[in-house]
């Protein structure tokens, strides 16, 4: 009782806690919701996202699954078909490849095939992203596979507030959602924030302007949003005002927010850490050029991972990934265009 005060102490929460709260609250709200994945019960998940949930909701609703991504997703589809809502965890999003067919052919298409008779409220979520030395199989951003598979929503929050609000929205959406969590953000202190105490959601399909600017628009999501913000700070020193957009949701995509920004800046760089070819950065560039060409004063540009896997050793890893420097250089080039 050293220091007392009447004002409640602001309790900042990290990205991981935000996710956990979302799951907890939705499990509470919806007795027909279930969580399943590898090591999510007793252990509470490899990263602890589901920590404590099994103790609270029981082994039937928080299920430690065999190492079977295809069964994790496939059985979730059956549960959804039979009235339930399911959170299906991939221990790392990289392992989603092992449940791939069930996702793209069974889950994604079920609503379509049944002309709407069947809804599939399943959220497949898992830790994603590079920059942590995870190498080829613990660093992937493979969202483009699913963006090209109609029937899936694909989202990627970058803040604790969004992580919680979007996970709750995803679980209530009624459509299958592939939910990319950025593991490097799970415990990042700098981005901790207070969360509302009341129930809230962040609707899927709305981008957020993270910083306003007038000379160039930086469009990104996930970890790269912070690279863009750092680049914007750096650019400001060089007299260039950058606007930073966090897409948050890839499918559906909030084109309006992007186009509104370009209407101001007439220059745009799309930044993501997936391989370039057929990645989502290219999709954004294509949307912009096909639909907002008239707003552009310079070619839209992208800063992405090179078309390589993510190598293990640090210098190699950084070499192939987007960085603040690469974004700054590209912005300077564009503004001079």
């Amino acid at each position, binding site marked *: 009782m050293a220091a007392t005060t009447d004002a409640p102490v602001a309790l900042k929460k990290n990205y991981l806690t935000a996710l956990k709260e979302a799951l907890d609250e939705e499990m509470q709200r919806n007795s027909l919701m279930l969580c399943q994945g590898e090591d999510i019960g007793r252990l509470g998940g490899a990263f602890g996202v589901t920590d404590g949930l099994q103790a609270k909701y029981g082994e039937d609703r928080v299920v430690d699954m065999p190492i079977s991504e*295809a069964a994790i997703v496939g*059985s979730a589809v059956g549960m959804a078909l039979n009235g339930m809502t399911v959170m299906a965890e991939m221990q790392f999003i990289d392992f989603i490849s092992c449940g791939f067919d069930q996702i793209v052919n069974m889950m994604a298409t079920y609503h379509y095939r049944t002309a709407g008779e069947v809804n599939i409220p399943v959220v497949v979520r898992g830790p994603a992203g590079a920059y942590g030395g995870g190498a080829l199989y613990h660093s992937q951003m493979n969202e483009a596979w699913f963006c090209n598979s109609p029937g899936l929503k694909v989202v990627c929050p970058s803040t604790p507030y969004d992580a919680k609000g979007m996970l709750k929205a995803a679980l209530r959406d009624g459509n299958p959602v592939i939910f990319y969590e950025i593991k490097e953000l799970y415990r990042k202190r700098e981005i901790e924030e207070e969360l509302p105490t009341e129930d809230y959601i962040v609707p899927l399909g709305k981008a957020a302007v993270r910083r306003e600017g007038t000379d160039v628009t930086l469009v990104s999501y996930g970890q790269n949003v912070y690279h863009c913000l750092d680049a914007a700070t750096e650019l400001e020193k060089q007299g260039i005002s950058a606007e930073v957009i966090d897409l948050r949701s890839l499918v559906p995509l909030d084109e309006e927010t992007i186009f509104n920004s370009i209407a101001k800046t007439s220059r745009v760089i799309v930044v993501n850490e997936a391989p370039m070819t057929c990645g989502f950065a290219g999709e954004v560039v294509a949307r912009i050029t096909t639909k907002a060409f008239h707003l552009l004063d310079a070619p839209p540009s992208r800063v992405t991972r090179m078309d390589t896997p993510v190598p293990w050793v640090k210098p190699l890893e950084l070499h192939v990934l987007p960085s603040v420097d690469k974004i700054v250089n590209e912005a300077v080039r564009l503004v001079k265009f």
Partner: protein
Amino acid sequence: MSAKSGSATAERAEQGQGSRRPSESLTRDECLELFKQLYLARYFDIRLIKEKKRGRLRGTLYSSHNQEAILVGSLFGLLSTDWISPIHRDMPAFFLKDIRQGWDNDSRLGMTIEEVCCQVWGKEGSPGRARDNWSHIGSKANKIIHSTSMLAGTIPAAAGVAYADRMQGGNCVVLTYNGEGSTAQGIFHEAINYAAVHKLPVITIIENNHWAYGTPTELESPVEDFADRAKGYGIPGLIADGQDVFDVYDKVMEAVEHARSGKGPAIVECKTFRAYGHGDHDDDRAMKYRPAEEVEKGRSRDPIAVCRQRLIELGYLTGEEATSFMAEGKSATEATNEDFPPEVVAYLNKGIEAAIASPLPAAEEGAMWVFKENN
């Protein structure tokens, strides 16, 4: 349980239920109903082949000819609340589910003959509005899981349905149908392993017709009896004579009882024989890769004939009755409407008429229902 699952047999014997086969309690009417359902399934197949030959249908027809006893026998003992998951060779399953509650009983579950025909004809009247092809239908309302083309791909969904049912206080079983070749898929293993861990009431029926398209069994699997797969999961693996509707009924009922009582999944292998090519596009080529004797031999045990014989033995079919309809052994080109009971022909005609009357879905529907809309 069969010799394939010693421990389960012992368990059942202990409960004093080992001796009496479930089919022995079927009444005369029930037996005659089974017989009629065999005709219905056969007629459906034969008629579709004829319609296709006349150019009235698109898509590939995977004939269930000669494999009807598996569908009829396995579905007959199910409750309305049970789920099924048929695949390409199981078209009759869609209307046979729950048909025992009355062929024209509107309130029964299972798809109607009209709905199934609308699907085959690609019409709006199909549940799912004929967006996916021929055998990829289903109906949540009727507890039929919609397959994709990816073989064995619905077994995990079947397990999930069972899990969700149990969580909601239900007591259903889920039957999935698979060709023997499909068991090579990884998903078969993942789903059954999962179902066995959780003792989910999922029964995997393996229709072993000894061919997977143009590939014989010995190149698909190192074991001849696919029921042996069960041993790797410590679950019962039963073998039924797929030509004998009563044997199928008995073995499936054993598995159903096992599953419904909370003991978990089972595999029921039904030994059968593929009458034609893999699909109707393959009939000619099948002559090349399949030995002629095999085809002859297979045809010789027609499930309709096997059932008829049993009914005669049971004294349920006598005199003229026993010989009035003789579809067995006849292919689609040989058989005529006279080979089938008139009510069977009439029933399917009703379905076909509905299909012809039903409109094509509008082109714009192609872009609809990608997502559930949330307003």
